[in-house]
């Protein structure tokens, strides 16, 4: 066994231990521990990525001494390693971008808790990405939920606690369904390891036994994860949770936490149920339909919103809809498009949250559009970054959003029955996106005479500015040289099953 194969397990354990150690540290030290962890995990994921790319296949890492049907396993292919790598980068950038805000909004003696939660969140995300065991996945889903809830609540005001309560309730409903699904699947197949379940499920499906229980299981797990990732119509908690928590939390929640669940769903589709079996159940059409509805509804809600943070949050509902639409397409191309959109949306949405906070800060802390007028002149970099994010969301070429739109459309064109609805809704949602994002861009670039608010220059916000630049570069990079990444995703998906 190569040394590199230890890395995924090590990075999960490192994060868990980091969280535990941080609980005894002061805020600042906890931050250093967290940044160190992030860098190390990024490096380890990169090594794993290179290793899997070179070997061209995934490897299985046995946790403990018991081999396949009984023990616990980790499985890392290039897609998993790349996801872990990408998640780490986004998390690092989001944390750096929101650092100043965190200091302002969280009581000093509680800052260390924030980093404890972040470490645990990272551990659970990595575990969701890497694990090959369904029940482990469930446990880490719950850890993820608890950590995310803490991230929402760490900034204490009525709204966030209420949002956290709503978030918890929705998440618990989702994980209840997921757990029931896992139990039934265990009942049907007698296994918890994904690859073993898949063999058994394929046999069951081929023999035609237990057709209805299998269908129910698929439905339970899909719906459970859909609820957790805030697919329309299960998004009621989302705008408050993203809108009022501290900005790093909002960025991480929208771009990583919900994506972790979606990634788990993709894993379940490929590695547990089997793509063909999943495709033959009509659940996929349900996901497709709700994805389309989410695309429209999220955008419409965003247009009616008068608060920039909540507007961005509603836009997440629409973007989650895109991802589910791609999954619901039921083709390899659609799935690849969804995975790419996970990346592109993660890069763009966190950029938007971080940029929005820069704009509201120079507008007296108000998030109403009327106060944001001319904000881009007072904080130039935030203005540019917000514009880049908006253009990417609208799907202008050269930015990452265009590529995912293109991939979705190409997938749709190859799909006979779902082509028309997918393309039409893509079109409508593009225009709706343009309405609220461009409205905001025009608003922040409308000059105001003798504004009452201070403006900031690059010198007073070096770190923030650098974060924004990194985000912009990431977005343009995904938009301009997407081919290697798309290739990687496609290879990863073939290795996946």
């Amino acid at each position, binding site marked *: 066994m190569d040394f590199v194969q230890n890395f995924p397990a090590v990075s999960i354990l490192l994060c868990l231990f980091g969280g535990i150690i941080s609980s005894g540290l002061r805020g600042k030290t906890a931050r250093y521990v967290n940044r160190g962890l992030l860098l190390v995990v990024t490096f380890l994921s990169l090594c794993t990525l290179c290793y899997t790319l070179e070997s061209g296949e995934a490897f299985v890492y046995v946790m403990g001494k018991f081999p396949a049907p009984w023990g616990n396993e980790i499985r890392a292919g290039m897609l998993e390693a790349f996801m872990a790598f990408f998640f780490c980068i986004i998390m690092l950038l989001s944390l750096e971008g929101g650092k100043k805000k965190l200091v302002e909004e969280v009581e000093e003696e509680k800052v260390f808790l924030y980093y404890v939660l972040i470490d645990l969140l990272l551990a659970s995300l990595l575990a969701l990405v890497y694990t090959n065991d369904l029940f482990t996945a469930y446990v880490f889903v719950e850890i993820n939920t608890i950590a995310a809830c803490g991230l929402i609540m760490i900034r204490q005001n009525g709204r966030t606690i209420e949002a956290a309560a709503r978030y918890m309730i929705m998440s618990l409903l989702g994980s209840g369904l997921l757990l029931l699904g896992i139990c039934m699947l265990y009942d049907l197949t007698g296994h918890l390891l994904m690859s073993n379940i898949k063999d058994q499920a394929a046999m069951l499906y081929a023999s035609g036994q237990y057709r209805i229980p299998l269908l129910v299981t698929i439905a339970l797990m899909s719906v459970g994860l859909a609820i957790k990732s805030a697919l329309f119509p299960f998004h009621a908690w989302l705008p408050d949770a993203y809108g009022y928590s501290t900005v790093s939390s909002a960025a991480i929640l929208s771009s990583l936490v919900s994506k972790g669940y979606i990634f788990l769903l993709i894993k379940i589709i490929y590695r547990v149920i089997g793509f063909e079996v999943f495709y033959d159940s009509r659940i996929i059409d349900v996901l497709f339909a709700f994805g389309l509805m989410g695309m429209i509804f999220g955008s419409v809600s965003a247009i009616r919103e008068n608060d920039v943070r909540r507007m961005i949050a509603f836009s997440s509902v629409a973007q989650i809809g895109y991802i589910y639409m791609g999954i619901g397409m039921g083709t390899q191309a659609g799935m690849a498009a969804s995975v790419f959109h996970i990346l592109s949306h993660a890069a763009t949405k966190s950029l938007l949250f971080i940029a929005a906070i820069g704009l509201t800060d120079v507008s007296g802390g108000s998030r109403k559009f009327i106060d944001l007028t001319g904000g881009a002149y007072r904080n130039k970099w935030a203005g540019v970054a917000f514009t880049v994010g908006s*253009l990417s969301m*609208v799907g*202008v*070429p*050269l930015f990452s959003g265009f*590529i995912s739109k*293109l991939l979705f*459309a*190409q997938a*749709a*064109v*190859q799909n006979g029955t779902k082509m028309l609805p997918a*393309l039409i809704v893509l*079109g409508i949602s*593009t*225009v709706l996106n*343009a*309405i609220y994002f*461009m*409205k905001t861009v*025009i608003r922040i670039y*409308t*000059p105001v005479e003798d504004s009452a608010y201070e403006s900031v220059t690059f010198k007073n916000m070096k770190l923030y500015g650098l974060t924004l630049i990194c985000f912009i570069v990431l977005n343009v990079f995904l*938009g*301009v*040289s*997407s*081919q290697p990444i*798309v290739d990687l995703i496609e290879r990863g998906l073939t290795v996946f099953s």
Partner: protein
Amino acid sequence: MYYIALSVLFPILTGVYLLVRKEIKNRKSLLIQTGIFLVITTVLGVLALCLSGGGILTPFNLTDRLPILFKVDEISILFAVMTMVIFLCAGFFSFIYMEHEEKEKRYYGFYLIVFGILLALCFAGNLITFYLFFELLTLSSMPLVLHTGSREAIMAGLKYLFYSLSGAYMALFGVYFIERYGNTLTFSTGGVISSQAAADNTGILLWIAFLMLIGFGVKAGMFPMHAWLPAAHPVAPAPASAVLSAVIVKAGVLGMVRAVYYIFGVSFLRGTWVQTAWMVLTLITVFMGSMLAYREPVLKKRLAYSTVSQVSYILFGFSVMDAGSVTGGLLHVLCHGAIKAGLFLCAGALIYKTGKTRVEEFRGAGKEMPVLMWCYTILSLGLIGIPPTGGFISKWYLAEGALSSGLSGFSWIGPTVLLVSALLTAGYLLPLAINGFLPGADYDYGSLKKKEPPLLMVIPILVLTLLSVVMGLFPEPLIHYLSLIVEKIL
């Protein structure tokens, strides 16, 4: 070949430079800088046209199958020359006109960016490149519309944005489907659809062609997606309106030409319902635009409606797909470019001098500003299509092409509509000239002052007027050149 990249990048980069640099205190130095940038861009553009000779430049790939690709062909030359002439004229015109407007630096910055993007559109060698710059054109020209920042301007700008984005999305359908059914996305004469795919998927490809026509038609102000144009063009500062109306709408025309003649191919579309629908839409637009212009009292709005109508003359020429009509269409691209830019600059000069906006308020303007008004009159005659101006030649070819096309019905409906619309054009353009020169007996000649606008304003207008007349007096070389293009693409 790298001149192509230079001529695109230089104006965009200098435009961005103007936007991000600190406010320039000295207005003169800003103007000198802008002037130099404009001239250098033009020189680079000319070099690109002369020296690249069919070479292909691929700076990078969006994805493996979607390269960003530039090349120069005959159509590029035609549109690029028009773009450069009008941008130079309107640019120098705005040096005076923009004196009293705020945020000049921003205006020139976006003006230069739009210039670069338009050149890129002319040089775009495949559909995805064209789409890329088509989107960027919308975004970068929007600040020109928004320039005054009034509520009306913002609403018009948003309207412009949404119409254009919807249109661009429809055009994007083409990218999606052509990538699947075509051999390549690169523009090639005769089309890129493989005959097998064309035979198997005729229905869907026709729909795609139709959607692309509607989509690009948004920019060209074609019915049913024309409503943004009369709102957005007049609220911009006059030189920006000139550019919008004379050049930027032509980007839509260029898109349709590329889609029909270089992607789908004439042989695929000729005789299909798409051609019929296209002709019907253009004729409706020609007539409706003229009618609306006729009823419009505000000068700049009237000119904008006139653009709606005149651009559809061009489109009608292309939709007939006959050698004569296409020649006429191409010629009218140039004529309308020069004339409409000239007319908007005239309107700008009138507004600049008098501060009035409605047509009936310019009584006696011909006595006060004879040179300007003579230019206006000659340009108007050109747009109506009276010899010896270029408009006459182009409309002659349009009508002749339609008559000889052998399309039952349209061969006589088309010319009739064009003729009626020409009468209406006379009806909405000439009253200003008549009132201007012959203000009537009750006009107070006592208070009359000579107030010819400054030279820097008059010269661009004179140049454009001259061009429109020269095109009418010596059309042979141009016609010869155009017929070469037409031979290739038909």
